[in-house]
C-alpha cells in the first residue's frame, strides 16, 4: 500500500471495502519478478493500483511550478456477477494539482468514473489509463499526460532518463510487520518532462524533472495506522531518495521504509530503523485550522536532509469529493545550506485518522 493512494483517492476508497464473498483478490507475494512492459499496465485482480507523477517544472521565464498527476484504479469487490455494463467492477480516479507560488495556493481538480463504455479504462498490457477526458499513456517508452482541469491544463511528455528503480525487494515493498502488508512498487526518478501548462488561459512551455511511482496491492492500511509522511526526491547528484513512515494512532511509529539510489546507480534499501522524520516547522491552514509539519528533517540511512516547501499552502481540501484533507507539496531538500534535491512531500492523517 502506498500512502498517497489513500489520500487522494475519493472517499469511496477511503471507506472500508469489505470483501464480498465471491471476490478473491490477488495477493502480493515476495519473489514474484516484475515483468515489463506487462507490469506497466494495470493489475485488475488486485484491489488498488496507482500511477503517480510528481515533480518540478520550470517555465521559459524561469518560474518554478510543482505538478502532481495521479491515476488510481480500484476494484470494489462486488459487481463481478452483475452482467450490466454499468456494473462497478473497476473504478478509476484521477487527481491533478499544480503548485504555483505566485498563486499561493494549490490548484487541483479530479475525475472519477467506473470503468466501461470506453469512457474510463486501464490497459492490462502497458501504462494506458484514462478517466473521461484525462489520460496517461506510455508510447514508445515515453509517457504522455493530458489533463484539462477547471483552473489549468497540462499536455506533458515524460522521458525516462534513468533505469527503473524497483522498490523494496525487487519491487516487493513491505508496508508493515505482517508479511501480507506489502505492495508491488517501482519508481522512475528523474523523468525529464516537457510540454505546455496553461494556467487560467496563460500558456507556458515548461521543462523539468519528475518522479513516477507505479504501485499495486490488495492490502488495506493496517488498522493501527493513522497516517503517513512520504517523500520522493530527485537529488542533484543524479541520485534518488524515497522515504516514508507510517504513524500509529498515538503519533508513534508504526512502520517505515525507503530506498536510496546514488548518482552511480548503487541502490540501498532502507530498513524501518534507518528512517527518521523530525518536524521543524508547522503551518496552520487558515481554512481548516489543521497543523502540518511542512518543514522536516529526515534521516534515511546516512543521508540527513532538511525539507522545505516551495510554498506553505499546498493543502488539498477534498472533503467535497474525496472526503479527506491532506497536504501534498513541492519541496526543496537541503543538506546544510546546499540544495541537495527537489521532490514532493506528502502529509496525511493530520486532519483525523484515516478511516479504513
Amino acid at each position, binding site marked *: 500500500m502506498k500512502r498517497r493512494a489513500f489520500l487522494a483517492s475519493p*472517499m*469511496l476508497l477511503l*471507506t*472500508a*471495502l469489505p470483501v464480498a464473498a465471491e471476490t478473491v483478490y490477488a495477493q502480493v507475494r515476495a519473489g514474484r519478478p516484475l515483468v515489463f512492459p506487462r507490469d506497466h499496465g494495470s493489475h485488475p485482480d488486485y484491489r488498488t493500483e496507482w500511477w503517480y507523477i510528481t515533480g518540478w517544472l520550470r517555465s521559459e521565464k524561469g518560474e518554478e511550478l510543482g505538478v502532481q498527476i495521479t491515476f488510481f484504479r480500484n476494484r*470494489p469487490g*462486488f*459487481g463481478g456477477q*452483475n*452482467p*450490466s*455494463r*454499468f*456494473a*462497478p467492477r473497476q*473504478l478509476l480516479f484521477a487527481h491533478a494539482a499544480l503548485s504555483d507560488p505566485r498563486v499561493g495556493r494549490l490548484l487541483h481538480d479530479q475525475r*472519477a*468514473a*467506473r470503468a466501461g*463504455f*470506453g*469512457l474510463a479504462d486501464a490497459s492490462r498490457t502497458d501504462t494506458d489509463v484514462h478517466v*473521461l477526458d484525462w489520460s496517461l499513456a506510455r508510447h514508445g517508452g515515453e509517457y504522455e499526460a493530458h489533463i484539462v482541469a477547471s483552473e489549468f491544463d497540462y499536455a506533458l511528455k515524460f522521458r525516462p532518463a534513468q533505469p527503473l528503480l524497483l522498490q523494496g525487494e525487487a519491487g516487493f515493498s513491505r508496508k508493515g510487520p505482517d508479511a501480507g502488508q506489502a505492495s508491488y512498487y517501482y519508481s522512475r526518478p528523474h523523468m525529464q518532462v516537457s510540454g505546455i501548462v496553461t494556467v487560467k488561459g496563460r500558456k507556458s512551455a515548461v521543462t523539468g524533472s519528475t518522479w513516477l511511482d507505479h504501485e499495486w496491492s490488495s492490502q488495506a492500511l493496517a488498522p493501527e495506522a493513522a497516517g503517513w509522511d512520504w517523500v520522493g526526491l530527485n537529488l542533484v547528484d543524479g541520485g534518488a531518495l524515497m522515504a516514508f513512515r507510517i504513524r500509529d494512532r498515538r503519533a508513534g511509529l508504526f512502520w517505515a521504509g525507503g530506498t536510496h539510489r546514488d548518482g552511480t546507480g548503487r541502490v540501498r534499501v532502507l530498513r524501518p530503523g534507518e528512517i527518521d522524520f523530525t518536524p521543524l516547522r508547522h503551518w496552520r491552514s487558515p481554512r481548516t485550522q489543521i497543523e502540518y509539519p511542512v518543514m522536516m528533517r529526515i534521516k534515511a540511512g546516512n543521508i540527513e536532509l532538511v525539507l522545505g516547501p516551495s510554498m506553505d499552502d499546498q493543502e488539498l481540501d477534498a472533503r467535497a*469529493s474525496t*472526503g479527506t484533507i491532506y497536504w501534498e507539496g513541492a519541496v526543496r531538500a537541503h543538506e546544510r545550506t546546499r540544495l541537495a534535491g527537489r521532490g514532493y512531500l506528502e502529509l496525511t492523517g493530520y486532519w483525523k485518522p484515516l478511516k479504513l
Partner: protein
Amino acid sequence: MELSAASVRRRLFLAPIAEHKGRSILSIIAIALGVALGYAVQLINQTAVNEFTQAVQALSGQADLEVRGPRSGFDESLYPLLARMPEVAVASPVLELLVRIAGKREPLMLMAVDVFRAAQVQPELVLSDAVESIDFLRPDRIFLSRSAAEWLGVGVGGEIGVQVGLSEVRLQVAGIVRGANFRQPLGIVDIGGAQWRLEKLGKINRIDLRLKPGAGVETFQARVRSLLPAGVLIERPEANVTRGARMSRAYRVNLNVLALVALFTGGLLVFSTQTLAVVQHRAQTGLLRALGMTGGQIRTALIGGAAVVGAVGALAGAALGHLAAELVIRHLGADLGAGQFRGMVPEVRMDPLGFLLFTLLGIGTAVLGSLVPTLDAVRASAAQALKSGDEQRMFERLRSPLPGALALLVGVALTQGPSVLELPLFGYAAIACFLVGTIMLMPQLALVCFRGMPSPRPVSARLAVAQVAGAPGQSMVSLAAIVASVSLMVSMAIMVTSFRISFDAWLERLLPADLYMRTGLFNDAAFLSPENQDRVRSIAGVRRAEFLRRQQLLLAADRPSVLLLARAIDREEPEASIPLVGAQVVAKIGGPPPVWVSEAVADLYGYRVGQTVELPIGGRTERFLVSGIWRDYARHQGSVVMERDVYVGLTGDRDVNEAALWFDAGSAAERSAMAASVEEAIRASLPGGTNLEIHLPGEIKARSLRVFDRTFAVTYGLEAVAVIIGLFGMSSSFGALVLARRREFGMLRHIGMTRRQIGGMLAAEGALVSALGLATGIALGWLISMVLIHVVNRQSFHWSMELHMPWGTLSAFVAAMLGLAVVTALASGRSAMSHEAVRAVKEDW
C-alpha cells in the same frame, strides 16, 4: 330630524343592503362562493406548480439538457456517444422507474444513477448520512429521501422489498439523502445494480447533460436530435414542468369556469336586489333629486352599496378559498391525489395577484350587477320618478330583439371555433353568448308568448295574463334569474348524465371477461413473464386468457407520454374489443400493421383514420396504419392500441402487465362463483402471485364509477349551489315585484276584487312567468349542454359521448320550480295585501 347630505347619502347607500338583508346575504354568499372557488383553484394550482417545479429542479439539478425516452428505456449505447461529444462537460445516465414497494399500493420513484456522474449534476443527491459511501455502488443498497423513509417507515439499515416481475428484490437502506431539495419520496440506487436486479439490462431512460461553458445549447440540441433513436427526445429540464402542468390544466380551467358561473349568479342577485331597491325607492330618489341631490351623488351611493356587497363577498370568498386550498392540499396533496408529492404537506402561500384578481372580479361583478338599475334611477327626471308606474321604463331599452339575436348568432358561430392553447375558450364564449342573448330576448319572447295567449275565463287568470302580457318588463328580473339558473342546471345535468351513461356503457364494453388481473397500475418493474402467462392459462377453469402489455410512447417533447396498449384484437373486427367512433379501415396484408388511436391522440397529434403514421417502437421508427379511432375515457393523455403479436414481433418483449380471463362455460352465477377459486389458484401457482391485483369486472366498474362521481362531486356541489341561489333570486325578485305593485292591489281591492281573487291572480302570474322561464331555461340548457358535450369536453378532455337526457331529474326539477314560483307569488301577495287598501291607493298621492 336634521338631514345632512352625507347622512342621506349613507342611508341611500346602505338602505338597500339593510332593507333586503336576506337578499344581500345571498348576493354576498354567491359572490363569496365564486371568489372562493376561483381563488382556491388558483392557490392549489400554484402550490402544485411550485412543488412540481421545485421537484423537477431538484431532480434535474444543474443539467442544461435532458435526453429522455419512454419509461421502458432506450439502448445505453447512446450514453457514451453523448458523453464523448466535445460540448458535453458531464453526461449522467439515469434509469428512472416507478416501482411498487411491498406493503404499499402507491409506487415509489426510483432513480438509478452512476454516483460519479450524478454527483456532478445533482450534487445534493449524493449527500447523505450514509455510513459508507461505497454503498452508492452496491447492487443491494438503496438511499431514500426523508419523505420516502417516513412513508415506508424504514430507517438506515432497514430493508424494503421492490417488486420486480412478480417477485421481490430486497434492498437495504444505506442512508437518507440529506439534500433539502429532495422533498418528494425518492429512492436512489446504483444504475448497474438496478439494470441487473430490476431486469433492465442494456436500458436507460434518461441522460442528464451539462454543457461546457460557451457551448450553444440550441445548436447542440439540434445536433443531438438527429442522433437520437425514435421516441427519445432532448429537451431543457423545464419542459417537465410544462408537461406536468398540462396534465391538470383542462380540469383546472373547467373549475375556474364554474367559479365564473358562481360569480355570474352573484352578479345576477346583486342586479335583482338593486333593481328592486331602485324601483322601491324611486319616489324617494325622485324626492332627493328634487331636493337638489345630483345624479352623480345618487349614482355613487347606489354603486357604492353594491361595491360594499361585492367587497364583503370577495374578501369572505378569498378567506374561504385559502382555507379550502389548505384543506384540499392537506388531505389530497397539491396534485389532488395523484401521489407525486406523497408525504409532503406543502405550504399554501398567499398569491397576491390571484387574490387581487378574484377580489376585483367579485367587486366588479357586484358593481356591474347594479349598473343598469343605477343608471336608470339617475336618468329618470325627478318629476317622472315621483310618479307611479314608472318601473316599466327600465326594460324599454330591451325592446329591440336585435342585440339578443345577434348574441345568439355569435354564439352559434363561436361553437365552430377551434381550441385555443388546447382550451375550449370559444366554447365557453359561445355559452356566455347563448346565456346573455337569451336573457336579452326574454322581453320579446314574453310578449310573443303572453300576447298570443287566449284569454281565460276566470277573472283572476284573465287579469294575470293581461298583466304579464301588458307589462312583461316587471317580471323580467325573475325571468332572467329563472332562465339563467335553470339553463345552467339543466346543461350540467344533461352533460354529466350523458357522460356517466356513456362511461358506464364503455366500461361494460371494455370488461367482457370473467376476471381481470394486473401487476399494478404505476409500476415499471412489475410484469408477468411468459412462463407465468402459461401458468395462468393452465389454471383449472380458465378457458381463455388474453394478455395486455402497457408501455409508454413519447410522441412530443412538450406532452405527457401516450400509453401503448398491446393486446389481443382482431383487425377485421376491432369493435369486438374496443369501442370505435367514426370510420375505420382494415389494414391490408403486407401493408403497415394497424393501430387504433384514442380520440385524444387523434385530436392532439392530428392522426386521421387511413393515415400512415410513424411510431417509436423499440427504439426504431415503425410505420402503422391508423385503422380506427377509439373512445378511451381512462387515459386522457392518449393511448394507442396495437396487436400484441405485432408488438412482440417488433420488440421481442413478451412480458405483460394485465390479463383478462374467461372461465369454462356455465351460467353467470356459476362463473362468478368460480372467481374466488381461480383467484386463489393464481395467487398460489404464480411465484409472487400475492402481488397481483385481481378483480371482478363488477368491482372494477363500481370503483371506476365511484371515481367518476368523486371527480364530478365538485361539479354537482356547485351546480346545487348555483341552482339554490338562482331560485332564491327568482323568488325574492318576484316577491319584490309584487311588493312594488301594492298600489295596484289596493286599487283592485277598491273596485271589489276579493283577496282570494288577487291571490289567484298572483299565483297564475307566478306560474305563467315560471313556465316561460322554465321552458326557455330547459331549451337553453339543452343548447348549452350540446356545447359542453361537443365542444368543451371534446376540446378539454378529448372524449366524445352520446347524448342522454335525464328526464326524471328534469321533470322533478320542473315541478319543484313551478310549485316554488306559485308559493312565492302567493306569499308575497299576502304580505303586500296586509296593508290597508286605502293606504295603498293613497300612497300614490
